[in-house]
């Protein structure tokens, strides 16, 4: 089971260590973690994607809640939410497959950020499924490097 947990924290140093340390100390696995300031500059939002069984994830939420600098823990998977991730993918390219790659990128509404003779950097934004299927499509051409921001998410309410 996978959960997206949105955590509002005090925006000062040391908070990230507290949260990240909690995961390692309790043996929780994080899939991804994205941090940024919110509309209120004194508050940061951490979006954590974690995998585990129901009991473990329940503990994750409770343990996060227990941290003094954590203001609120929201389990987005319990409600209707919107999620996005931005990925930069460096793909091997040659004259034969160039048009095919560009066409695939186009169907995914991806952006070509940088083109070299042998490589192309494609920027794609989307939810989990879209990113997954894009990566699957690109794999046969040769993925040299992938950089991901980690997922961010927002409740629709």
């Amino acid at each position: 089971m996978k959960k997206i947990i949105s955590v509002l924290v005090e925006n000062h140093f040391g908070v990230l260590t507290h949260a990240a340390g909690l995961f390692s100390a309790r043996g929780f696995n994080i899939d991804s973690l994205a941090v940024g300031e919110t509309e209120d500059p004194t508050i940061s939002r951490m979006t954590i994607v974690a995998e585990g069984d129901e009991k473990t994830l329940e503990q994750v939420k409770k343990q996060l809640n227990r941290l003094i600098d954590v203001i609120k823990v929201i389990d987005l998977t319990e409600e209707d939410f919107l999620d996005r991730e931005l990925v930069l993918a460096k793909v091997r390219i040659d004259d034969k497959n160039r048009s095919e790659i560009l066409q695939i990128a186009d169907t995914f509404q991806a952006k070509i950020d940088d083109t070299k003779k042998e490589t192309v950097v494609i920027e794609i934004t989307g939810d989990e499924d879209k990113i997954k299927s894009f990566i699957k499509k690109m794999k046969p051409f040769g993925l040299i490097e992938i950089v991901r921001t980690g997922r961010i998410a927002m409740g629709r309410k």
Partner: protein
Amino acid sequence: MKLTGAKILIESLKKQGIEVMFGYPGGVVLPIFDALYDSDIKFILTRHEQGAAHAADGYARATGKVGVCLATSGPGATNLLTGLATANMDSVPVVAFTGQVKTTLIGNDAFQEVDVTGLTRPISKHNYLVKDVKNLATVIKNAFHIASTGRPGVVVVDLPVDIQMQETDFHYPEKAEIRGYNPTCKGHIGQIKKAVKLIADSKKPVLYVGGGVIISGASEKLREFVEKTEIPVTMTLMGLGAFPGTHELSLGMLGMHGTAYANHAIQESDLIIAVGARFDDRVTGKIDEFAPHAKIIHIDIDPCAISKNVKVDIPVVGDANCIIADMLKYIKKPDIEKWHKNIASWKKEFPLAYKNDSKLRPQYVVEEIYNITKGKAIITTEVGQNQMWAAQFYKCDSPRQFISSGGLGTMGYGFPAAIGAQMGCPKKTVFDIAGDGSIQMNIQELTTAVSNKLPVKIAILNNGCLGMVRQWQELFYKKRYSHVILEGCPDFIKLAESYGATGIRITKKQDVKKALKRALKIKGPVLMDFRVEPGENVFPMVAIGQPINKMIGALA
């Protein structure tokens, strides 16, 4: 009025009502020690920072107030760590102040620099590194608030030396305001009503109570609850004294070295009412076979404790004292006469006992300490066999009477904790029940006891070995006694005397009473060296991985 950071610390401590602190000086805390020079706060100079942390912890456990300790940066801070981990694991309110190198040097591997907030993160409830003197008063206010409310714990405040010297206007906040921290106090009334109904319908209920009852001051309410419902009570090591150990409804301690009747009662029960306890592995034994027929009501202030180890049917999050008070409004007595008969027969069949012959046995020593102090002493323990015998045979009737490192199991805890307890409760008799191994881990604090005229009594149950480890090697490692025999022990009598304390050696059973009487008459610290039977084991015992009703040596 402008004050330096160091003065702000002292003034803030005064505002918090802090009367005593424990610690050790060093380079980067010089400004604080200079401010202490003119202050009314009683400062107890221990002989090791670990001793200071344990003493602050013992003071806190004995009085219910916040314990305060102070150490310098680097090794001062790292020496505190074992003590802080000990306190935090047992939910003891301690605020620790550490010196830090000046802010401009942080991260430079400066002399005596360590990353204190990094080191203490997993062993504290919260920590602060103060980088601006303007925040200092608020940080101190918050630190005491966090340490002492909700599930209490350790808060560390790391103070760079330049912050201690900078000046700012001093204003101590009236109230701590932390938006991410609002511990629940009152239990959910719907949950309470559900719990009460389950209790009324139960046939074989057991109250399983832990340190949370003592921390929340719920002992009186608990007693009222028990006398109304007649539900038998078993206690964890941390819960000893939460309910009178001599009460007829007390089952004593449960778990690995608990009484056989407590463990049988748990395994047979149809309803466990856990209050301020956390289903620790030393209590549950093999978790899959723990209390197989029981529904579980769990009252705890820490939501994380709920359903962490066992699945709970009715959780009630909040302060135990509040929740029991609310339950008392609705509670009906369950029909459990048959259950009482079961329990009475277990008590008769499997009493807590030891071989009462002419030999000097450690359990006998503990019983005689109980007799001579009329069960009223504050007992601190070290860790190992001495701790278990103290738990089994010193039947505490009051909360804050039994002080022991439960969660972390820290050897060397008992003696400095006794010093802290004696500082907090000067009129009480304080006994540290120790082993010859543990006592040597913080023996240097004899100086602290002597120089502060603290009449702490130490009873070393001296069996010449690390008894608990030896016991495990005997039972589970084919008697291959690997590095547990303590050869070259010092002469404890001479040692005590060289520190200016009194030493008494007891080698015969018939001398125990007389020696204890003499020790209690002496106004200063007394170290008693009881040469007990070396091969004595702690029974009953549940081996690792066994359910708690599978006990070794349940019959004496």
